[in-house]
């Protein structure tokens, strides 16, 4: 059997000859189809069995080539917070900087994160990473392509986003607002939001949802903002050696002058 058969949404297997009598009168091809379908029905869905659900590109070769037309190869790196040397501290670090509670069921330390490293020859072109965040009516999968030097977002796209307003939220002009943002901008936003709302240096504060977004779709807009921050944090943790921490500490100092930075 060819491996690509298993890439279908259902499991497909062909079976032998012990079929109901009436089917033995049918042509071989029809019998095979019957068997494939019946067994697909029997075992549909059982392939998803995993401990924690990560977020991977459904077609990495195609998607990465679209993001980086000059790429010649890519590498996947699978990381988990629980496998870091000081996993408890790392998870605490992650929670503290996300500025919103992590879901204890779906956002645990055992969640596998897949980072795509894109190369042209030996030159690293960029990192691509996706996260799952719970949206209003289902999971939202947010992928970021980031510059390996500046850690700034070069592209944002959704692999999964199902909502009545998904067309508006997926709109290119909405997504392009995120280009150039770094994790430092989110940390600075924490400060501006509290101390100086509407400040012109607050790039995250200037992000605007699609015009006339229905009220019930605001949940998804906020989930997207949270997902982008979560994604940048994981990139910072696993690939950028927490380089943006001085911004976090400075924002916290400014907001809570009596507290010492961590």
């Amino acid at each position, binding site marked *: 059997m060819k491996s690509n058969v*298993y890439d279908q*949404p*259902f*499991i*497909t*297997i*062909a*079976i*032998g*000859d*012990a*079929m*109901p009598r*009436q089917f033995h009168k049918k042509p071989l091809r*029809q019998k095979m*189809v*019957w*068997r*494939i*379908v*019946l*067994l*697909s*029905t*029997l*075992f*549909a*869905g*059982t*392939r*998803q*069995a*995993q401990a924690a*659900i990560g977020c991977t590109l*459904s*077609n990495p070769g*195609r*998607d990465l080539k*679209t*993001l980086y037309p000059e790429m010649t190869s890519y590498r996947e790196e699978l990381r988990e917070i629980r496998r870091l040397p000081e996993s408890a501290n790392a998870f605490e670090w992650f929670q503290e900087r996300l500025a919103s509670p992590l879901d*204890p*069921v*779906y956002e645990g330390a055992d969640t596998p994160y897949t980072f795509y490293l894109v190369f042209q020859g030996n030159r690293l072109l960029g990192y691509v990473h996706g996260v*799952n965040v*719970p949206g*209003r*009516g*289902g*999971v939202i999968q947010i992928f970021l*392509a980031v510059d390996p030097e500046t850690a700034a977002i070069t*592209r944002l*796209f*959704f*692999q*999964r*986003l*199902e*909502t*009545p307003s998904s067309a508006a939220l997926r709109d*290119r002009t909405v997504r392009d607002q995120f280009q150039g943002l770094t994790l430092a901008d989110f940390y600075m936003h924490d400060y501006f939001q509290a101390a100086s709302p509407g400040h012109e240096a607050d790039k995250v504060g200037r992000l605007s949802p699609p015009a006339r977004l229905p009220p019930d779709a605001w949940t998804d807009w906020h989930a997207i903002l949270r997902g982008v921050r979560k994604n940048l944090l994981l990139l910072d943790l696993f690939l950028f050696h927490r380089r943006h921490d001085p911004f976090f500490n400075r924002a916290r100092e400014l907001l809570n002058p009596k507290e010492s930075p961590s």
Partner: protein
Amino acid sequence: MNYGILAWKNLARRPVRTALTVVGVGMATAVAVSLGGFNLGFRAAISRSIEQLGFQVMIMAKGCPYEAATLMLKGGTGLLYLPESAHEQIRTDPDIEAITPVFLGVAEKPAGGPEENTGPSAFTLIAGIERESYAKMKPWLQFKSGPGFDGGRWFSPDAAAEAVMGFEAAEYEQRKVGDLFYITVVPHGKTEPEFHAFRIVGVLERTGTQDDGTVFVPLHTAQRIFGREGQLTIVGVTLRQFNAIRMREFEGRWMSIPEVQVVSLEQVKGALVSLVGTAQTMVAAVAVIAILVAMIGVLNAILMSVYERTAEFGILKAIGAERRQIFYLVCLETLILCFAGALAGSGVAAGGAGLTDATLRRLLNLGLTQPMVLITPRLLAAAIGGAIALGLLAALWPAARAAALRPVEAIRNQE
């Protein structure tokens, strides 16, 4: 004469040869045990998967599978359905213990990527069910509990917008009890997708079956959103007495309805077992070759040992050893070799069962969640016993040859 010590000393005199022979026997035993474990485990896994479907018999529309293939391969629509009236007719059958109608549909999950309009990337299996008859047929279905999942229940009969999610479906969509869940469906006869929101009222515990990846909604809701009112995909049945005769009678009664076909899951089980039958036969052939090679190895090792020790046997006989004692000594050496090899091989097979299971899953992705390799004490005992028996069989000729030596000729020939 202490045969055990003598045999051990003889083997220890050629440690490399002894070790290689033991390794050969061990490898053959490990292959045989792993194959036997796969045979046992695969049948058990298939049986368990079939039992967890809850049905003994499935009734579906004729031709349905061909349309379902379209659905499966292209992610589109097009299942053929049987009329709900067939369910009403069949449920009057006196041999039926339980019966449940099921409507299956596939909701596309809109996809995205760096490029727009990349099409659907995922699908959600939607099952429209009658909660009471379905739950009765699958009494092991339990609601997940814990933070976010407490208070799980089946949807109310009159609640059209309530849904229950299988374990994996909820995990994949990151849904909890009380959350909304969106489904986009293109109803039958229409071209534009319609959007539906369901309130999740329960998440099921993992069962290891297709139910884990399914979203359950009330039967009539599913029929309505897919534009298939009055139609079903399958009717699941359990019979009061399930055997070949009853099944044939049942089949005969209902095959007369022109739209339906009756399928026994026992037949499916047999078919699944036969699916890997060819592969198992091929692996068995490899195992038989390995066992033959191991036997030849044992024969060679013992024969060489006998040749090298011709004079020794001659002296033993000259000082009074009987033929049967020499025969016994050679057989005992073989027994030690085979027992050590079989024990090591069985240990490797039992210890590596997890690895074998993972490898088989990678090679034969059958969608089974139960272990595919089942190594039982009985299997291990049979493997060790078989290895010893075959080893002794291989030792008969060298042992007889050693026992038949004439003392004077044996001593002279070795000088």
